[in-house]
C-alpha cells in the first residue's frame, strides 16, 4: 500500500517514479522489526549473561550496559526505518552506527575474558580484541554510508526516492 507521495519539489524526482509507504505502514514495519531486534540485541545477550551470572561466572560486560545499548540501538534502528524517506535518515544512520562503535569500543576495553572454574584451580582466558577491532569495521563502513546519504539528502533532496522506494 502506498501513500500519496510527499511533495517532491522542483528538484525532486518526477511523480510516479517512486512509491513511499505511508507513515502508518512504516510504523507498522518498524514495530515488526522490533521483535527480532529486541531478541538479537537484548534477549539473547541478556539470557547468556544472566545464565553466566547464575553459574557464578564473571561477566565480560555489565548487564546494565547491555540493556542500555540494546534499548538505544533498537530504538534508533526502528526510528531510522520509519524516517527513511526523510532527511533525518542520514543523521539517524550516523547516530546508530556511532552508538554501535561506542558499544563495541566498550567491549574492546574488556576484551579479555577470564573464566575461573571454582574448586578446580583452572583459569581460562580468551583475548578477542582483534575480533572486536575487525567488527568495528562493520559500523564504520555503515557510518560512511550514512554520511554519504546525508550529503546526498542535503545536496540533492529526494534524489534517492526512486531507488529506495521504486514504484
Amino acid at each position, binding site marked *: 500500500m502506498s501513500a500519496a507521495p510527499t511533495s517532491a519539489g522542483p528538484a525532486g524526482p518526477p511523480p510516479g517514479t517512486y512509491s513511499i509507504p505511508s507513515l502508518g505502514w512504516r510504523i507498522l514495519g518498524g514495530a515488526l522489526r522490533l521483535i527480532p531486534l529486541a531478541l538479537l540485541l537484548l534477549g539473547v545477550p541478556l539470557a547468556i549473561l544472566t545464565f553466566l551470572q547464575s553459574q557464578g561466572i564473571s561477566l565480560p560486560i555489565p548487564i546494565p550496559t547491555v540493556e542500555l545499548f540494546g534499548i538505544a540501538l533498537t530504538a534508533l534502528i526502528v526510528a531510522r526505518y520509519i524516517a527513511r524517506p526523510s532527511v533525518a535518515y542520514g543523521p539517524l544512520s550516523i547516530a546508530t552506527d556511532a552508538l554501535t562503535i561506542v558499544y563495541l569500543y566498550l567491549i574492546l576495553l574488556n576484551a579479555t575474558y577470564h573464566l575461573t572454574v571454582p574448586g578446580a*584451580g583452572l*583459569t581460562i582466558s580468551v583475548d578477542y580484541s582483534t575480533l572486536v577491532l575487525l567488527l568495528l569495521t*562493520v*559500523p564504520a*563502513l555503515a557510518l560512511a554510508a*550514512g554520511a*554519504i546519504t546525508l550529503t546526498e539528502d542535503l545536496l540533492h533532496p529526494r*534524489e*534517492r526516492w526512486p531507488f529506495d522506494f521504486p514504484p
Partner: protein
Amino acid sequence: MASPLYHKPPTPPGLYRAARAFRRLSTIALVVLIVFVAFVAYSAVQIVKAKPSVGSTSDTYEPNDTIEVTSSFGLSNPTYFAIQDFALHFRILNGSGGLLVDSTTGPDSIPAGQSAVLPIDLYVPISATGASLLTQNQYLEWNVWGNASYAYLFTVSIGVQTERSWGAPFDNLTVTVGTPFLEGGVEEIPVTVMFANDASYADEGDLNFQVVPAAGPDCATGGFAVDVPAGEGYDQTTDVPIASGCDPSGGHVASEYVENGITIPLPSEAIP
C-alpha cells in the same frame, strides 16, 4: 535497437551508489566475520575433542644440584587454522612458598592438520631453596599455564593451579653416631643411617659420610652402598675406625650421596 516494451531502469546517482556500496561492504564484512567466528568455534571444539596428552614422567639427578623432571605435552590440531606461539609455563613453589622452578617450554607453532609434542624439562633444585626436597616429603604448589594464538584472532590462556605431593628420596634422613669402642686394638665408632625412599625412583648409589669434630681434622669417614627401591626404607649401621683421640661430641656428620658420578650433598647432622 532498444525494445519499445523494455525500459532500462535509470542508473542511480553517484552518491547513492557510493552509499549503497558502503552498506553492502558493511553487510558482507559482518556476514564474513560471523561465518569465520562460527568456523573457528567449531574448530576449537575439534582441538579439545582431540584430547591433549601428557607423556610419562622421569626424574634423574643432574650435576648442577638439580633433579631433572622430564615429560612431554602432545597436542593435535586437526583443524584448518594453525596454533601459533604455543608455550607452556611452569612455576613451582615449595611448601614454604620458595620459588623452585620458573620455566617456559616453547613457543612453538602447530600447523593446521598436524600434531606436535612439546618436550618438558624441569630442573628442580635440591640445594638452597630446594634442599628440603631431598629429606622432607611435602606439597609443592604447581602453577602451569599455556598460551597460544588461534585463527589469527584469539589469544587463549589456560592456567592450572594445583598442589602435588613430593616424595623425598631420603625422607627423614638421620645419620647418628654411637659411642666409640675398641675392636682388636682399634678404636671404632658405629654410624647408623636411616631414611625412607619416598621418591618415584630407586636410590642406587653410595652414601658417604664424614664424622667431623667441633675442631680439628675429621674423626672418621665411611660409606654405605645403597640400593633402595622406591617406597622402601633403609636402616643400616656400620663401624668405622676413628682417629686416635678424636672426640666427635659437639661436631657433626657430613654426608653426601653419589650416583652415576653425580655428588649430592645431604644435610649434616649435629652430634650431641
